[in-house]
């Protein structure tokens, strides 16, 4: 270990405090219906007995997170009553007094302390380069900025309103524990996370296979293949009991009350459509647009009768099922199969050739991206599950830095339609610009070399985003099409971004497979 620099960490509190204060400035900004969702959950958990939590449906925003999150809201509600008791009444729909707004915003800012702590742990795991004495060029500093000042988290949590920072804190902390080889703590944190928000099931396969392969088997053969005899049942039992007890703690009471089917039906609402209100930039966005193009072509070429086509509502803004016209319609089971197929190679790779904790991180990324690409009713915000962990790899390897730049820029841009109010337009544009400038200059400096981080074509694609942004955010609202085709900017945004996300996904896969081949050739 290199000798620690004396003032090495004084910048970290500064970064964290700076971003926390910035978040406080957005207290009066626009907030989405998610604000009311969480207010309603505060009210439900505060004023109803546990047995009613998953049955209550006065508001349309029923409780649809796992029980631990409900307990988290229950805890928050005890602080909330000192701000404004009226927000804790279930019938007070759409209640947003200034004290309520202040409390809810501050609750996000304060629970972000978990995230800040997790970022610090991650920064400690990063390999420091030798010789770089300037703080600004140290990987740990760059990583801290990329995570703490992440554009997506800032706008999704502190303007749109959600508790992602708190949840990602658990994810990053668990990743950091794995990087430090404290697997049991990592597993415990992840089990807690799963019971806070089940969207992290996306990355559960990576955890399962990694822990089984690299923790339960204590040794590898000399050629790196699995040594079946080194299996340690004790470790498996330890893991199992940790995960099992967390789940029992969370779901136990509901199983005891015989409410498990009710809870599960709330957690997995398959009645929703293939795509969310506006399309997340994934394969299905491309699939939908292909369908649309084929329909238009068909009608033009007189191959299809317009009257026979089902009325396809595109991104009308409502969550509803969507019928494809030419291409076969997609069912949840198809998406499930596609998702599993897409993450299979990554899972197989860390089974046959475990690359340590970093290999696990790469597999986690591919799981997150694979589920994002092929999943059923994916939210655009889910891209953050890939972006945040990729930041760790980006400060360590040159190739990943290139992928990171493409993925973050497109992924973050795809979040733009979330914040559609004109008053917040300057904030999202400037914050995005800041993040782009910082990530490009810092990573370029970190991986300084003769070759540019990005292929010229990638640069052209990313510059195209500027054109898309000006067209969608400035030109379109002023043009006459605004009334006729209100969904056009959303469509353009998700289709354009899905190209970049798909490309990053493929490149990540290529880098994984290339890594697999290298040791064989040696």
């Amino acid at each position, binding site marked *: 270990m290199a000798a620690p620099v004396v003032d090495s960490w*004084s910048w970290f509190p*500064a970064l964290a*405090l*700076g971003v926390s*204060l*910035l978040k*406080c*400035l*957005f*207290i*009066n*900004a626009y907030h989405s219906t998610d604000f009311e969702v969480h207010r309603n959950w505060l009210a439900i958990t505060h004023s109803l007995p546990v047995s009613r939590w998953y049955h209550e449906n006065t508001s349309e925003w029923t409780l649809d997170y796992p029980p631990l999150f409900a307990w988290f809201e229950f805890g928050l509600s005890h602080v909330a009553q000192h701000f404004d008791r009226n927000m804790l009444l279930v019938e007070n729909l759409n209640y947003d007094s200034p004290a309520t707004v*202040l409390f809810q915003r501050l609750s996000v800012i304060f629970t972000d302390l978990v995230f800040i702590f997790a970022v610090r742990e991650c920064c400690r795991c990063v390999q420091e380069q030798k010789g770089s004495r300037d703080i*600004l*060029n140290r990987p740990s500093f760059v990583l801290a900025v990329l995570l703490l000042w992440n554009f997506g988290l800032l706008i999704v949590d502190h303007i749109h309103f959600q508790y992602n920072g708190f949840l990602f804190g658990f994810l990053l902390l668990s990743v950091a524990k794995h990087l430090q080889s404290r697997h049991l703590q990592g597993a415990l944190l992840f089990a807690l996370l799963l019971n806070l928000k089940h969207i992290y099931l996306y990355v559960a396969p990576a955890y399962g296979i990694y822990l089984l392969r690299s923790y339960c088997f204590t040794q590898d053969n000399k050629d790196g293949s699995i040594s079946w005899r080194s299996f340690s049942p004790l470790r498996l039992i330890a893991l199992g009991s940790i995960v099992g007890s967390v789940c029992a703690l969370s779901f136990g009471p509901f199983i005891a009350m015989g409410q498990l089917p009710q809870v599960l039906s709330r957690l997995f609402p398959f009645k929703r459509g293939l795509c969310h209100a506006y399309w997340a930039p994934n394969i299905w966005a491309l699939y939908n647009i292909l369908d649309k193009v084929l329909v238009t072509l068909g009608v033009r070429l007189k191959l299809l009768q317009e009257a026979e086509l089902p009325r396809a509502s595109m991104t009308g803004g409502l969550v509803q099922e969507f019928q494809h016209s030419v291409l076969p319609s997609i069912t949840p089971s198809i998406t499930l199969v596609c998702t599993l197929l897409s993450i299979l190679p990554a899972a197989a790779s860390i089974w046959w050739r475990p690359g340590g904790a970093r290999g696990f991180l790469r597999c986690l990324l591919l799981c997150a991206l694979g589920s994002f690409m092929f999943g059923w009713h994916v939210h655009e915000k889910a891209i953050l599950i890939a972006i945040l962990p990729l930041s760790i790899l980006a400060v360590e390897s040159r190739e990943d830095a290139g992928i990171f730049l493409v993925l973050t820029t497109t992924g973050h841009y795809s979040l733009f339609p979330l914040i559609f109010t*004109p*008053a917040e337009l*300057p*904030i999202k544009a*400037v*914050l995005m*610009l*800041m993040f782009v*400038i*910082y990530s490009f*200059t*810092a990573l370029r*400096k970190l991986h300084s070399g003769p070759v540019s981080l990005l292929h010229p074509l990638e640069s052209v694609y990313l510059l195209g985003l500027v054109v898309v942004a000006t067209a969608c955010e400035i030109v379109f609202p002023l043009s006459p099409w605004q009334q006729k085709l209100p969904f056009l900017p959303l469509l353009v945004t998700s289709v354009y971004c899905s190209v970049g996300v798909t490309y990053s996904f493929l490149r990540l896969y290529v880098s994984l497979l290339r890594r697999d081949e290298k040791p064989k050739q040696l």
Partner: protein
Amino acid sequence: MQTWSLVSLCVLLGVVVRWGVSLNSYSGAGRPPMFGDYEAQRHWQEVTYNLPVQEWYLNTTDNNLNYWGLDYPPLTAYHSLICAYIAKIINPEWVELHKSRGYESPAHKLFMRATVLVADLLIYIPAVVLYCLYLTDGSAKKKVSTLFCFLLYPGLILIDYGHFQYNGVSLGFALWGVLALGLGWDSLGSMAFCLALNYKQMELYHALPFFCYLLGKCVKLGLMGRGFFLLVRIASTVLVTFALCWLPFLSDPSRALQVVRRIFPVARGLFEDKVANTWCSLNILIKIRSILSSDSQIYLSTACTLLAVLPSSVRLLTKPTFWQFKLALANSSLAFFLFSYQVHEKSILLAALPVCLLLNDLPLVAIYFLQVSTFSMVPLLLKDGLLVPYVVTSLAFLFFGVFLLSALEHCSEEELRLGAYHKLLFCLPKLDMACIVRWKFYISVAVMAGLSFASVALVPPPHLPDLFPVLVSTTAFLHFFGTFLYFNVVQFSGPPSRKSQKKKN
């Protein structure tokens, strides 16, 4: 990291913070019949757009001067006119004569806030960036740190983007003037300053140092030779700039006089509300306003102001260096703020600008003063509902000022420029100056935090309803007065040693 990217990050952060503050309420929101400065600015757009130039400053049936009549110099009026043209395109209701009074809507608020940001982006922010890059010394990182603190000075942000005013324009022009003088472009500098003066008459606070610096420079060059030409060039620049700004009013002397009368209203009394200046603080002990007639009040305040400005001006006249100029700017504006007639609490921004210029040279004192200046406006900010932005920006400024400029480490006697005065000021030679200053800073911050908290949370006793505003203004006054004395002392001590060496190189 290259300097350009750090600079652009600082600027962008400055923009985000400004816009974040602007999401909050403004002065007089939803408070008829008079509303506040926001309505004043909107009303000026209405007046300038609908009335001919001659009537802007006249009381007519279409222009009731008692309802936010135009009382700033012509450039402000032109600026309002430009904004009004844009407003007219977006929504004609915003500037309709008479009918638009007290118009408020989210879209209109957005428009007004955007005009402030645009003006800032065009005038104030570029000047700050250029000043920090070219006229401060130290490494690139040091320059960027100074820039960061300069851009995030809370007082200006809160008044312009919260309360609602266009101080960034006049201060920005003044800063362009300073910048040009620092780079040796004297005519351009005087032109920029004339623009500032024609935007807001309060820029007179800075006029004497500009005058003395330029005159001193001319004298130094020799009034019989090159100095004379410089003087003529500057004088003609000033005259031409003024003439251009006042062009529509010059055809009739009485019209110009009416404008002047509107700009300098002497009938409004020695001070209004609770200002952290001498007269208001003295008022606690002696009720000056009831003892003296209003004429003698004017004479008294003028005399005191002149007396207070005199030392620094004379010093600058005899020694016209840029360092002296910056200090004289601070001294003069503070003297005006503390002693002159009819001072507003927002006028402290005029003193804050020169102190911002000193952020790099005297970090601790500058941060200290700037924080107190923000604090002195607490009653106003609370009235406008700007508590959260006030707390957030102040904390950020204090923390990052101290952290980035390492202010607390740089407070030895040498670094406070007090070396020469040591024996004179302190009879006890063993006193640790740095320690005293540091503790004074901590105590002041604690007092400010306590008073801010009290103003928000506590109810004053019924027989003393103004208790907290008076306490705030008195505390601020003591600090301002102390800083005023300190800057005068620094101005009369020798020039900073490091600086003079660098100049020679």
